[in-house]
């Protein structure tokens, strides 16, 4: 799959933003007044910034409001609805904390639930696609949710939670990579089933339909070199898991080290999300002999 920067930024930053909102909604850290204001600004910058960047890949962003209508069947529509509910509820909850010094616990709980639901619906947009076997796995939502919670805990300053969640997200990520490497093969979709010619002999793409490129090849047939993919996986794992955990574990704890941990984790998460798209093999590539 073509790794579109807007979607990579959106999924990483909105995931972290909604993760932070989840922790704030549950009362960690228990802040009020200006401190709460600062936390909410960071959370909203990440969450809303991510959502806005996601509209950059739309062909017709001026019609984006229509995307709220099909929540009965579409995970993308559900994501939009959940995100708006989460942002409105958390804004009311945040107002209580910032301006009235009051923590309206029930509102925070509802906001936290919808924040997590937003991340879950985002992940289901990818998980539901049988056409992309690497994503079509229960581990995809587990990966998105654990990343979101880990990033949220990190920004919320919940050091113990952050260390545990980062470690968990790292394990899920590694399992997803390993499982994903065999996903296309295990899906049973091959050039033989794609053409229906498999029972006659071995099928080989002989001539493509056109000499130039097209939308399908640009969007779906992106191939990342195997060698680079392994290097990038290692770099991403070190940045998002190993370094942050070491930095957080370092005694004495300091905000400078915590900031470094955040930067390292986010950089690693961006690399991992780039791989999430770049390594995903769409079955349409089979028709072009690209798998």
């Amino acid at each position, binding site marked *: 799959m073509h790794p579109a920067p807007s979607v990579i930024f959106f999924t990483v930053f909105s995931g972290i933003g909604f993760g932070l909102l989840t922790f704030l909604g549950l009362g960690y850290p228990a802040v009020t007044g200006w401190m709460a204001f600062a936390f909410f600004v960071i959370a909203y910058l990440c969450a809303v910034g991510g959502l806005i960047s996601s509209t950059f890949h739309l062909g017709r962003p001026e019609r984006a409001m229509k995307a709220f209508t099909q929540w009965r069947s579409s995970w993308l529509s559900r994501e939009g609805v959940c995100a708006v509910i989460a942002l409105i509820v958390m804004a009311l909850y945040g107002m209580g904390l910032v301006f009235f010094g009051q923590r309206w616990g029930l509102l925070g709980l509802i906001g936290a639930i919808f924040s997590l639901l937003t991340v879950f619906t985002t992940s289901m947009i990818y998980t539901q696609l049988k056409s992309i076997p690497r994503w079509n796995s229960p581990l995809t939502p587990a990966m998105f949710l654990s990343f979101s919670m880990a990033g949220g805990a990190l920004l919320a300053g919940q050091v113990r939670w952050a260390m545990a969640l980062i470690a968990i997200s790292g394990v899920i990520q590694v399992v997803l990579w390993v499982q994903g490497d065999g996903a296309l093969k295990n899906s049973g979709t091959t050039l033989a089933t794609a053409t229906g010619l498999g029972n006659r002999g071995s099928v080989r793409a002989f001539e493509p339909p056109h000499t130039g490129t097209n939308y399908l090849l640009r*969007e779906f047939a992106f191939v990342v070199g195997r060698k680079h993919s392994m290097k990038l996986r290692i770099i991403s794992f070190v940045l998002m898991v190993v370094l942050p955990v070491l930095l957080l574990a370092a005694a004495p704890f300091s905000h400078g080290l915590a900031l470094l941990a955040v930067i390292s984790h986010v950089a690693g998460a961006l690399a991992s999300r780039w791989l999430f798209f770049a390594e995903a093999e769409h079955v349409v590539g089979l028709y072009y002999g690209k798998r």
Partner: protein
Amino acid sequence: MTTLPKSTDRKLGLVIDLDTCVGCHACVISCKGWNTENYGAPLSDTDAYGSDPSGTFLNRVHSYEVQPEQGEAQLIHFPKSCLHCDDAPCVTVCPTGASYKRVEDGIVLVNESDCIGCGLCAWACPYGAREMDAVEKVMKKCTLCVDRIYNENLPEEDREPACVRTCPAGARHFGDFADPDSNVSKLTAERGGMDLMPEQGTKPVNQYLPPRPKDTLSEGAGDIDILAPYLEPVAQEAKGFLGWLDKTLEKL
């Protein structure tokens, strides 16, 4: 509404005969022509006369080589367009309701004025039947020439999809799969019509007829032709200057 209908009154679709298709790409061109000049946004080309031409097509013809365990390899031309699936994954993912499957005839369409160009339907389609138009920024797909098949301004013989109408080999057939006595249902039953990627669970309406076995060249080797003995090489040994040269070079 992007929920799929439980059932459709009719199931209009195509039968594509892989035995008959000669790979001339006439269906590709007539499709591009009709769907650029008629319903919906035109199918754009970018850099059409430059070094990196690219365009939107709703129908493309691939060619595959099939090598059986024994015998000659066979070249099979393979036209591919939207299969108007009963369980169309492209429809349910649409966030705006722009994609829908019609209850009356089962055709899968895009309402271009509702499409936000997010591309998710093209991601969901395993067949690559949907293409985002680079100029109009909306999703384009085969309409089964919905503006031809019901068009009373056209002579009756033209009321079928442009690709079917134009195919010089008669490799494409249009009809109603819900009617067991229709031309397409009969063809599918007679020739063993098949689904593409059945494991994806899309329940495609369009059916592909497998090619009949063709080449028997390697059968009965040694008995190629009664005239073959007369075609044996006459001169087994080279003579004259060339013969001398051959022998001399051989010795070196």
